[in-house]
């Protein structure tokens, strides 16, 4: 019963944080691009995301005529659910989950299905290509992501994220002892969350909006919220796994630093091409993270 209440509260707060991140990204990106960003709704435009969500919720619910309605309607939920379920493994929310890391990797790989469903179900060629790209990308980057996560788990001797985080409070944080893994994880995480420069699944200059080109209203809002929740989750993971966690305010600071770096990269980098993305994943990141695993083994011998 108690857990249920916590889950409900967290389930209410997380979309709020995602909306806050959306506003934060728009503001910071605007500052980097010599413009103002949203600054009309509420103080500093803080309620802009809220207003956007209300607008999206009140829009008419459209399904394209020739689409596959089942896949089309299921896809946003399939994108939304795994990301929010993954939060359950974070030590700040549940410090006792012993299979935390395993659960995380398993749950996160589910969201690849949603992009395929959205791409196949929309009956649009842009969406189809975007869905293919997104799926290929997620399946490929799952491997370096998991390999990088194995390093801290091996060093701490536990899959429990809380143990991994608290281990770093007595020793050096893993970003110093496993820099290769930290960098590999960060890049793979950005690719997993479809952040620029790895946003080729929704590349607006080629595929208009990629897999969610046909979506509007609530379903589009679900995609956006899940994307930002994904970003939050992965930055949170970096904070816990590599920066050492710590007191809640420290974790929050670490998360915001990571988010700011991600946004900064978005402002600086052009988009990578699909085949170059694959080459980076298979030829660079997997060897690097494997090397990190070896290094961790030697370090802890």
């Amino acid at each position, binding site marked *: 019963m108690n857990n249920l209440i916590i889950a409900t509260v967290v389930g209410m707060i997380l979309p709020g944080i995602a909306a806050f991140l959306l506003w934060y990204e728009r503001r910071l990106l605007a500052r*980097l*691009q*010599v*413009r103002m960003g949203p600054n009309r709704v509420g103080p500093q435009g803080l309620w802009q995301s809220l207003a956007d969500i209300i607008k999206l919720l009140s829009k008419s619910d459209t399904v394209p005529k020739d689409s596959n309605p089942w896949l089309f309607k299921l896809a946003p939920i399939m994108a939304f659910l795994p990301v929010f379920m993954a939060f359950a493994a974070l030590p700040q929310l549940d410090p006792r989950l012993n299979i935390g890391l395993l659960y995380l990797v398993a749950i996160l790989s589910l969201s690849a299905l949603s992009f395929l469903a959205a791409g196949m179900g929309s009956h649009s*060629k*842009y969406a189809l*290509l975007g869905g293919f790209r997104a799926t290929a990308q997620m399946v490929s980057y799952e491997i370096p992501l998991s390999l990088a996560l194995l390093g801290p788990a091996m060093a701490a001797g536990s899959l429990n994220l809380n143990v991994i985080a608290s281990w770093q409070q007595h020793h050096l944080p893993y970003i110093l002892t496993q820099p290769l893994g930290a960098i590999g994880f960060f890049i793979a995480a950005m690719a997993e969350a479809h952040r*620029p*420069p790895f*946003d*080729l699944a929704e*590349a*607006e*200059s*080629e*595929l*208009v909006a990629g897999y969610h080109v046909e979506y509007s209203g609530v379903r589009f809002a679900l995609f956006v919220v899940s994307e930002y929740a994904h970003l939050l989750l992965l930055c949170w993971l970096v904070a816990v796994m590599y920066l050492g966690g710590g007191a809640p305010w420290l974790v929050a600071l670490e998360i915001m630093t990571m988010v700011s770096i991600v946004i900064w990269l*978005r*402002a*600086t*980098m*052009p*988009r*990578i*091409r*699909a*085949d*170059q993305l694959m080459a980076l994943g298979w030829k660079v990141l997997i060897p690097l993270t494997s090397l990190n695993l070896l290094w961790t083994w030697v370090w802890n011998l």
Partner: protein
Amino acid sequence: MIANKEGITQEELVINLGPQHPSTHGVFRMVLECRGESIVGVTPHMGYLHRGFEKLAERRTAVQYQPYPDRWDYLAAMFDEMAYIGAAEALLGIEAPPRAEWLRGIVMELNRLSSHLLWLGTFLLDVGALSPFLYTFREREMILDLLMELTGARLTYSYLRFGGLAHDAEDIWLKKVRAGIPYFRSRVREYRQLIDDNEIFRKRVQNIGVIDQDTAIRYGLTGPMLRASGPAWDLRRHRPYGVYRQIETPVVTRDKGDTWSRYQVRMDEMDVSLDLLDIFLEGIEPGAVNAKVPKNIKFPEADTYFAVEGPRGELGVYLAGDGTAHAKRMKIRPPSLFNLQVLSQLLVGHMVSDAVVILGSVDIVLGEVDR
């Protein structure tokens, strides 16, 4: 893909880019046939912005037609004006006074700068970087402000007239241009620092869309598209007109012919334009800006071809008169139309993402392609 009873037959995926697509820079449309993500066939469609400007020249008097050239290539209107006015002047035998020529040079180089800045922003948008677009628009806006102060319009200036200019430039305006040059120079340097050594950008543009020297000449490419493939051909240098007769314009070339070379040529051309502006501002001297022009302009029974080096290449006007105030026939040689012809050959074998980048590197303006 269509499945039938015998098994699975495969066919190409046909993707339609445009006319309403974010990357087509207007209303260009290309139909890509893809196998996976690689392109195996391209069908370009143009003409969505056809407004019949060549025919209009036969129905309007020479003076009435003056504002129309601004609308051909609305991003570099001064060059269109120069091409039309230059052709008409050649036909009528009018010479503009020296101050008018100097001022024409100044406004054209300013316009070239603004056109290249817009190209840089949208090209990087095609590659996937959003920020440079906003930076270049900030600088372009300053140039447009300068031109607006001089002519009263941001894009369609109607500043050049038969035998001169609409009106003289004030000294304070020239001072403002002079003050702006070091600023623009530092900004161009800043862009190069931001963009040039970006690993992803290099990988996206190097060895993409290679045009060898032979192909470039055979397709009649001009401007940065041609110069990126090797030939040093610049009308400002090799067939000079107006103020360019008095100076030696440096010609920027590269020899690889890929998208990266085209980017470099245009970036260097911005520096050249700034250098030229320096020279023009040095050389300009007081005087009249209008020559003596007959009250009723009638094109004599003759024809002429006059071309200027626009930001996209050779912009030419063929003008034939028959003794009336109307042109007997006018034909425009728009550089982007000719440069676009090579596109379908360039795209095959590349990926969908490259198609957008290559199209961006051609630098088309649909107002000029379709006329």
